[in-house]
């Protein structure tokens, strides 16, 4: 064996060991919990064996029958889908004029929205609570949909506007000359053209709303309006009573964004790099 090729294979070994370690640390605890969701409570508490034996779906049955997880999951879906749709609609309508037309205050508005994207919004907790209550939106499903639309507006706006800025204007100008009205141009030319950016913003917004605990916890009190993240946090406190239900619930709640991500990796990755470097 000659020295260069020996060093080559040594560094390949080092690289793959690093990657394997990173993968293990990234997913190990989560994978272990997902596996444990198919164990019996007795096996979990005894801490014996990595694989479920015996295999049981009791945790999943409990999660639905006792905790009524499906109701929380449905709420989460309504918020994520409604908030995403709202944010994208409003962001498209705002991004188009702010990308294409010059008028007084335009740059200030764009700068303010971009700043709002960066600032840590948890700082605004108290006034958000106060405003939601003052508007009669506190602890209502519509209220949360509107709130999430507003929260995800800056991110969707930045993604859409930077995409629009990179597009040529020929099609719109041709349509203008043909006498098409403003909203027809938005609907028939801008929206179809922006499809990649819309997909990117939609996926990222959906996952962020799905995963929100802070504002869901702040802005709802009744069980019928709470999302699945709150249900999970509740599981934590009643851990000892139903550990398998908690693990099954966590598995289901995690699985949705994981599946969305794996199915739409390209959009998620594009969204992260667009939202962060622009």
């Amino acid at each position: 064996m000659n020295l260069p090729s020996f060093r080559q294979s040594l560094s390949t070994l080092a690289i793959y060991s690093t990657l394997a370690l990173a993968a293990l640390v990234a997913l190990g605890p989560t994978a272990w919990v997902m596996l444990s969701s198919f164990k019996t409570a007795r096996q979990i508490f005894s801490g014996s064996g990595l694989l479920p034996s015996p295999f049981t779906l009791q945790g999943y049955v409990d999660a639905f029958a006792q905790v009524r997880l499906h109701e929380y999951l449905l709420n989460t879906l309504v918020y994520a889908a409604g908030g995403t749709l709202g944010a994208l609609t409003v962001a498209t309508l705002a991004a188009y004029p702010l990308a294409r037309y010059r008028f007084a205050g335009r740059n200030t508005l764009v700068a303010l929205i971009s700043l709002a994207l960066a600032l840590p919004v948890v700082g605004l907790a108290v006034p958000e609570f106060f405003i939601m209550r003052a508007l009669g939106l506190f602890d209502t499903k519509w209220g949360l949909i509107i709130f999430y639309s507003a929260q995800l507006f800056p991110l969707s706006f930045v993604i859409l506007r930077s995409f629009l800025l990179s597009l040529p204007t020929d099609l719109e100008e041709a349509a203008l000359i043909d006498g098409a009205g403003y909203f027809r141009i938005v609907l028939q030319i801008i929206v179809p053209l922006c499809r990649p950016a819309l997909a990117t913003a939609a996926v990222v917004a959906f996952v962020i709303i799905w995963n929100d605990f802070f504002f869901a916890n702040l802005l709802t009190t009744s069980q019928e309006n709470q999302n699945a993240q709150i249900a999970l946090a509740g599981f934590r406190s009643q851990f000892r009573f139903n550990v398998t239900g908690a693990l099954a619930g966590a598995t289901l709640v995690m699985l949705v964004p994981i599946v969305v991500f794996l199915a739409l990796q390209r959009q998620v990755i594009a969204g992260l790099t667009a939202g962060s470097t622009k």
Partner: protein
Amino acid sequence: MIRSGMRLPIALSLAPGVALFATFFVVPFALLVTSSFSEWSGLEFRFTGLENFQRMLADFVFWRAAGNTVFYSAVGVFVQVPLGCLIGIILAQKIRGWKVFRAIIFVPWVISGAAFALVFSMFYNPRFGLLNDILALFGFASRHDWLFDTSTARFAIAGTFAFVLGFTMIVVMAEIASIPKELYEAAECDGAQGWRLHRYITLPLLRNAIGTCVLIRLLSDIGLFDIVYILTLGGPNDSTVTLALYGYRAYLSGEWGFASAIGSTILLIGLVLILSVSRLFRLGERAQ
């Protein structure tokens, strides 16, 4: 550039966005700043000047929260970002299996704080947690309760996110993909090889990407809440409390003015971070 017939549709088109933005960002911000200088319980509103801030600065729990937030941020910046960069640089070489590794390493980033908290409350559990089992394999058998010992709780919390490398990895990979191949070819002609190639070409060109990751890391760490709230509620003995949680406690006890002062402090730190980190890494300027 705007024809007169376009004014109305443009205004109509901007209206919903401006209304939402004003209602949920501008007005709350104005309310936050005003109430920071007031005693406010939702009903009564009394201007009290700097009292909230004086009280905050005199409260040792505030300093503990600030110290912990700095600690969590330091873990983010000095552990998470460098490791993420390393993985990003490795995977950007498109070695065999890179897509699989990219997917696996990215997955934790899409898992919610609440679910992650549940995962780690199991992982750290003193009776049946995986961590103690793993340590036992290496001869450190113990029934240590990582989250309820004041000397280890902070590290246990940091451990939940220190190895979430996906975001940095993705940003670094995207940046490397935009580096022209000719640069590497030229450097190879000059005799550079392997890691030297990355040390002298990749790293300097990653300034923008690394700065972005550091900034985003800091901005999310300053608002760290979910994991700490669910795992420890800031305890034991406030050893894990963060600024966001400290503010939330004030809100829960009905002291909205005081809570707003803490919220303002969080936003102010965020603003200072944006300005200083952007400047430090000269964000927005192209490399060279």
